């Protein structure tokens, strides 16, 4: 969970998505400003930290970049438990990865922290010729499910810093009043106990 102290926010952020969607590449671009064509496959999860200054706050991200292969999904709760934010990544040239992204959204809505800031990233936006998922479709889906949406390219750096910046901004706004509307949580099952029993 994100914690505030003198406008310093520590925020756990998790990246989820299909294998090869470019989760690690997004993180590498954001944290080190680099891109490599063949990124080592992630096993379990990899950890990174990066600090962003937004408006009047400093957000220190503790980033968990998870493995994409289906069988690794059983490990995911350990990484998204207590996360303040999540980026769900799909590959715009791969329809199946978009379907997988929707499943992650469902799982987070049911099991994750109810105040979690969720972003949907349509990665590999540079591969326009190979596009299989229309931006409009993803936009509509994101809106309906309370996520914000951006198409990103870890290769060209398009929107990569922006997506993290937008998350940081939202976290800094959410922080002083963690539950501004009061109503948002009500329609979700109180899963605290359930998730505590999982992988504890």
């Amino acid at each position, binding site marked *: 969970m994100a914690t505030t102290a003198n406008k310093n926010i520590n925020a756990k952020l998790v990246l989820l998505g299909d294998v090869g969607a470019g989760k690690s590449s997004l993180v590498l671009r954001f944290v080190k400003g680099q891109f490599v064509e063949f990124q080592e496959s992630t096993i379990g999860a990899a950890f990174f930290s990066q600090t962003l*200054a937004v408006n009047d706050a400093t957000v220190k991200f503790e980033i968990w970049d998870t493995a994409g292969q289906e069988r690794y999904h059983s490990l995911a709760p350990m990484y998204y438990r207590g996360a303040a934010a999540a980026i769900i990544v799909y590959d715009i040239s791969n329809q199946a990865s978009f379907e997988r992204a929707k499943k992650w959204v469902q*799982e987070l809505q049911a099991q994750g922290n109810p105040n979690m800031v969720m972003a949907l990233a349509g990665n590999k936006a540079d591969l326009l010729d190979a596009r299989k998922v229309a931006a409009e479709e993803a936009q509509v889906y994101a809106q309906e499910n309370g996520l914000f949406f951006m198409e990103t390219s870890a290769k060209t750096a398009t929107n990569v810093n922006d997506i993290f910046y937008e998350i940081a901004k939202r976290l800094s706004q959410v922080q002083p009043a963690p539950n501004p509307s009061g109503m948002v949580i009500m329609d979700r099952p109180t899963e605290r106990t359930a998730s505590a029993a999982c992988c504890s």
Partner: protein
Amino acid sequence: MHQTHSQREFAIEFQPQIHILRPSIHSRRANIVVKFQDLYGFTVEGNVDDVNILNEVREKVRQQGRVWWALEASKGANWYLQPQVSSLTEGIALKSSLKLSNLTNAITLKRLIRKGIPPVLRPKVWFSLSGAAKKKSTVPESYYSDLTKAVEGKVTAATKQIDHDLPRTFPGHPWLDTPEGHAALRRVLVGYSFRDSDVGYCQGLNYVAALLLLVMKTEEDAFWMLAVLLENVLVSDCYTTNLSGCHVEQRVFQDLLVKKCPRIATHLEELEFDVSLVATEWFLCLFSKSLPSETTLRVWDVLFYEGAKVLFHVALAIFKMREEELLQTHHVGDVINILQKTTHHLFDPDELLTVAFDKIGSMTTNTISKERKKQEPAVMAELDQRLRRLNSIKMDDEK
């Protein structure tokens, strides 16, 4: 205008590097990062201290080689491969053949292996002591070539994933990352995926198989090493759907940390740090992604002779070596940074293995098996619960 806009708004602050302050010329030199290639062709980034350690280690490897040759001269060629010596760890089955000389030989061998198998002997010693040779001898000579021929051109979920991972397995390695290297790794992984369709292919095995290929030299021997590893050495179901065996190992590890390093365990619990956050990769890749190659192979030397309990010894040792530092941490991120920095710079295998076996103390395979039995039901219940919850989401969706 747009460029300055992004710079101003994002103001990314890089984590300041914490250097240990030593007021000598050496410390300044030690902070210069140098790139070099290690014994197995991996590019390593390290400081001058690391290079010095690596040179010392190479010298120790040469000395250790001389010890092996001397013993071979006195005990006879391949004395360590004789079944009454080499399979002593299997225990009871060979009780009848327990002669004093065999027993002393076995003790000598165990000590020798903990000090490292000379790289030139590694393929032969691993192949025999792990049980791979025995496994291979139970099937026709042509098994591997028949298998690779039979599966050629077949496309499955596993082969697709393997093809995706080939260029992502130690990218940049002078042999692994060539068409020849990719093809060899592909045949081993695809072959295995058909041998055991329950495992198929699990990410992580690509790193293990790649390193086996580098050591064993021949593809076929690497294949049998992979087979004996998954079928006999490691706990079962480590790599199958939902990785249940791996979940069990993680829980056992958590318990062992409480027993063997209680101060660290208590502190990490206060930080809400789950050890499997870092240890999952260690166990699935058998440290090949975290430790320098020669250190990894020294761990594997012992693993193939003493069994999967070695992984616990080594994982505990990594925590133990940094006990004081770890106790000073306040954030999960700091813990991970310490552990990552430690593993990446562990160029001296003896330093690690001394802690792993002398400081951690003995753990019998039997105790660990009991621990696993204890954890299994909880893991299964947990995995089952997750599956049911996910299914219920789907049901709600369809309503």
